[in-house]
């Protein structure tokens, strides 16, 4: 359960938060939403795809980290092996209007970094979180605007990802979407220039380029499966 409350230096003076990435803290996510500012960092490691929010049906853009529910192929007990998206770094923090809020029942609570100094000033970890939210909040608005435009221009199409693994298993993911490259090429000049001027064309090409990470992701999963089988055999 979650128990979200506005953060303040009185009530939360002695609260400690585990900052690291771990499956124990709920970082084992198959898909994590990212903001457009993260695209260059994300695209070199993970496929950037769209999916729909199960509650609202609205589109989210994010990094695909695994094939199965609760599978993050880049996470182990030591943490994330490559770029850690802001939404995985934010831990138990949320925004409530212009305030920072915290889920005091989050598994990260207890042990780890103090949020406040003895004087009641934000400690370095909390300052990092505050800075993270200064990127994340406006970044989420820009990202929403970007998604709206590519949907309106009919540049989004479903992508069915099917992967077969050496243990005989097979996965078919049907809830993901990517850029329709044919529709992109068919855009009228004015729309293409508008995308370019807004900086969106570059984002679109990062999304297209990141599709090359899908087979890399499949190989990674395959190696894990084989390692698991091998250890079972031994």
């Amino acid at each position: 359960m979650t128990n979200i409350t506005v953060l303040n230096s009185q009530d939360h003076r002695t609260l400690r938060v585990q900052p690291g990435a771990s499956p124990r803290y709920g970082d084992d996510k198959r898909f994590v939403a990212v903001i457009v500012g993260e695209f260059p960092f994300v695209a070199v490691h993970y496929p950037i795809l769209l999916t729909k929010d199960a509650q609202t049906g609205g589109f989210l853009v994010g990094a695909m980290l695994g094939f199965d529910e609760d599978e993050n192929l880049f996470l182990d007990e030591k943490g994330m092996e490559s770029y850690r998206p802001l939404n995985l770094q934010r831990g138990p923090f949320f925004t409530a209007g212009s305030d920072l809020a915290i889920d005091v029942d989050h598994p990260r609570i207890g042990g780890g970094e103090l949020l406040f100094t003895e004087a009641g000033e934000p400690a370095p970890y909390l300052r990092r979180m505050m800075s993270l939210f200064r990127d994340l909040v406006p970044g989420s608005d820009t990202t929403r605007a970007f998604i709206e435009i590519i949907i309106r221009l009919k540049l989004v199409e479903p992508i069915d990802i099917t992967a077969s693994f050496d243990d005989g298993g097979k996965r078919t993911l049907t809830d993901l979407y990517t850029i329709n490259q044919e529709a992109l090429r068919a855009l009228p000049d004015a729309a293409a220039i508008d995308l370019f001027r807004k900086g969106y064309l570059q984002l679109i090409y990062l999304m297209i380029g990141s599709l090359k990470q899908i087979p890399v992701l499949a190989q990674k999963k395959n190696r894990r499966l084989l390692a698991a089988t091998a250890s079972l055999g031994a």
Partner: protein
Amino acid sequence: MHPVRNVVIVGGGTAGWLTAGVIAARHQGRIKAGTFSVTLIESPNVPIIGVGEGTWPTLRTTLEKMGVSETDLFRHCDAAFKQGAKFARWTTGAADDAYYHPLMLPQGFTQVNLAPHWLAGGKDQSFCDAVTPQGVLCDDGLAPKMITTPEYQAVANYAYHLDAGKFAPFLQKHCTAKLGVCHIQADVQTVNQLENGDIKSVTTQQAGEIAGDLFVDCTGFRSLLLGQALGVPFKDCNDVLFCDTALAMQVPYDTPDAPMASHTISTAHAAGWTWDIGLPTRRGTGYVYSSRHVSDEQAEETLRSYVGPAVRGLTPRKISIRSGHRETFWKNNCVAIGLAAGFLEPLESSAIVLIELSAKLIAEQMPANREVMDIIAARFNDVNHYRWGRIIDFLKLHYVLTQRPEKFWQDNLDPASVPARLQNLLHLWKYQPPWFFDEFDRIEEVFPAASYQYVLYGMGFRTEVAAAENEGTRSQAAGFLSEAMNLTRKLRAQLPRNRDLVKKIHDYGLQPI
């Protein structure tokens, strides 16, 4: 050669605006190039009838092709999902007497006929529940899709319930703003004809004379052009379908989040039946009956007792129904659509689907010039005679399998009131269940053989089936029957409540993909 460039539709309402939208969407290229026009003349003084609140799944394709957003339809027309109809008390009249006519076909319908297998089996399940999940979804009050399902796509096949009074203005806005339909608000005073009978123009009170190459009569029961100006007679069907009056009443919900049925509830009474349609903000109800069998006062009493305590303070609106259609639908350069073409009765919501199919045929087959128009007109008339005939048969089917004792129902069993074609089929179906070879094979058949199966076996009709005859398709049928069971289990777990989804569509909208 006299090219057909200007289509003039007389009459707004659902028929007029749907026709305008379908034709204009199909001919956008020519409209934008300025070589073709669609004009709709609507009287500012004649109110639209607007009781048609049930539709067929065809409306999804029709609206999508017009470029209408499904989210907008839900938000502006008080629309909700319809997954079929539940027929209560039609067979015996007992409290537990009910069956579904769902919109999903039986599982594997195009590959194997499940009816004989169900008939030969133990029948521990109703036919509907054995072959499709949809009856169970309706019982559970579930929606036919999810918030993540794109606009117009279905998880379970669906149509809409909607507020007809809001639907026509909604279409009007779309047609004029997006499709280039010219809207003229004026009263038609005279219809000006050439010597050969063709309509040259109409003279209006407010906008002068308006000429056209093809006129579409959407003037409702009056049939101002085809009926009055061209003198095409009306063919009564009241010897087959007895209902001639309806009392309609809009009933509020007890609470705004009260459960909302995702199917039409049709309940049989002494001299007809009531409809009950769940819209998000209210229920639309009404009693359709034969005035030869019951007085208006008694009918109102029946409707009031059906609606229950919510009826206090409500007054029903009376609508006369003249069951029948024009003898010809397209004559000279004039074609009638909607009530101007005819109306049977509200059972099975055939009115709007007929509008769509007619408009589509005209749009697809738009004659290039007056010289070839008669060929298209003959084709249109042939198709429409077939459609009206099959709809009359299918509606009558609901009345001829009853065991109810009241005079209205017993009169319906009189063979003199049953069309010969239907009598033949009923005879045949005693020995073989309906499927593809029963002539329901037109490209745009309004009611496919599956619909006949749902009604026949829902009402306990017996077809003699020899078990040995099923041998060849037994394993295939077993596969589809178990597929239907698995699908039922899966969809029950997956689909949201009907009202919850409609609310989410209002809050968040559906995605276009």
